[in-house]
């Protein structure tokens, strides 16, 4: 019989609404709230051995004790599989569920959650097994029913098939597999179907971009604080944060304090999407610090933020791009930057 661990927020556990969102982590034996419906679906195949409950604010505002509680709970109860939520469209709950899935994975325990596809929690841990749900708890029955087959399979230690076949949201994972026709045959078949106006299934879906409302213009450049950002993977020589040449997920900030120009002695380019030797020989070709310092001295603008932000803009997943962009923007808002020059290679 499968041992199932269930994570719930304060609301679904029946502790209370927003006024109880600071509820600290609490373990209860057996099924609680929607866990009872899940238990009924599992029948004799599995048992919810323990439920971890935590207030949404507590989990998101105090991640250290919250994470410690999740780890302690996993060690104490040793479930075969963890079910988190479902969280529907609730953002803080979704982010807690995503983190519970991540902590479970780190502890070697498979996990499944359910969320609305636009729940921002998805961005926190894109490798989670997330069953798409409606946006409210009215969808609970349907959501649990959709999660059940994944609970069974993951709990039994089986490897899941592709997202579309198993009913979870794509995780950006591609595995080698045998196909009947070669890539060339499949591509030509798709092209013929497309030209004939017939339906076909792409193998590499292209992410859709958002329309971005333009920022208002900088009114007083002479008083403005300007920041440099690049997707050109300019990093300190030696690549201390181990930026990948492609498909990286992170960004980093590096000090420009006291520097008059970029130099090949102290910086290099590790971007793998173009021939980067010229940028390594003279990183000002990508991060134009030399002329920015000149213009700063001449008073063309107020001040240069004394660090720059860098990432490898090469085959980066849109989810990571969005998260990196939001984090870089937040860091620059903290610096009171009025404008940004973003150099894209």
């Amino acid at each position: 019989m499968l041992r199932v661990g269930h994570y719930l927020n304060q609301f679904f556990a029946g502790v209370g609404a927003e006024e109880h969102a600071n509820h600290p982590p609490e373990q209860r034996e057996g099924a609680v709230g929607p866990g009872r419906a899940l238990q009924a679906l599992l029948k004799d195949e599995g048992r919810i051995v323990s439920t971890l409950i935590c207030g949404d604010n507590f989990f998101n505002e105090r991640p250290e004790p919250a994470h410690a509680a999740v780890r302690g709970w996993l060690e104490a109860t040793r479930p075969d599989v963890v079910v988190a939520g479902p969280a529907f469209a609730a953002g803080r709950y979704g982010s807690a569920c995503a983190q519970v899935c991540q902590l479970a994975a780190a502890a070697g325990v498979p996990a499944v959650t359910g969320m609305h596809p636009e729940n921002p929690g998805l961005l926190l841990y894109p490798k989670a097994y997330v069953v798409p749900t409606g946006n409210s708890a009215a969808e609970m029955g349907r959501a649990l029913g959709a999660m059940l087959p994944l609970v069974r399979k993951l709990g039994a230690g089986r490897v899941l098939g592709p997202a579309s076949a198993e009913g979870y949201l794509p995780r950006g994972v591609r595995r080698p597999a045998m196909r009947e026709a070669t890539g060339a045959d499949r591509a030509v078949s798709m092209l013929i179907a497309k030209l004939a106006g017939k339906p076909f299934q792409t193998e590499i879906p292209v992410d859709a971009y958002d329309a971005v409302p333009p920022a208002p213009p900088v009114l007083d450049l002479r008083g403005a604080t300007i920041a440099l950002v690049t997707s050109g993977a300019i990093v300190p020589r030696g690549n201390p944060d181990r930026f990948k040449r492609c498909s990286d997920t992170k960004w980093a900030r590096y000090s420009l304090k006291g520097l008059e120009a970029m130099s090949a002695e102290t910086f290099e380019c590790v971007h793998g999407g173009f021939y980067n030797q010229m940028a390594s020989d003279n990183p000002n070709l990508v991060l134009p610090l030399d002329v920015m310092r000149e213009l700063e001295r001449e008073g063309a603008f107020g001040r240069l933020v004394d660090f720059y932000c860098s990432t490898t803009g090469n085959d980066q997943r849109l989810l990571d791009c969005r998260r990196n962009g939001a984090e870089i923007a937040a860091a620059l808002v903290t610096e009171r930057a009025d404008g940004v020059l973003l150099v894209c290679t």
Partner: protein
Amino acid sequence: MTVISALPPLAMQAGANRVVQGVKIEHVCGDPSLTPELDHRLRRRLVERSLEVLQTPVSGPTLFQSAGGA
């Protein structure tokens, strides 16, 4: 924000609203085939143009050319 890019259509498709045409993918802000002085002058013009563009109102993705040539 001004995006300096050698591939403006990609930047604009991704939603960048102020885009300045860069030099080349491998050296967006300059040209190592020029003498250091001319390369520097080219880079300076590109950055000055990008700062001007920061002060320009736009209503959607817009491409701005930099003053061409070295």
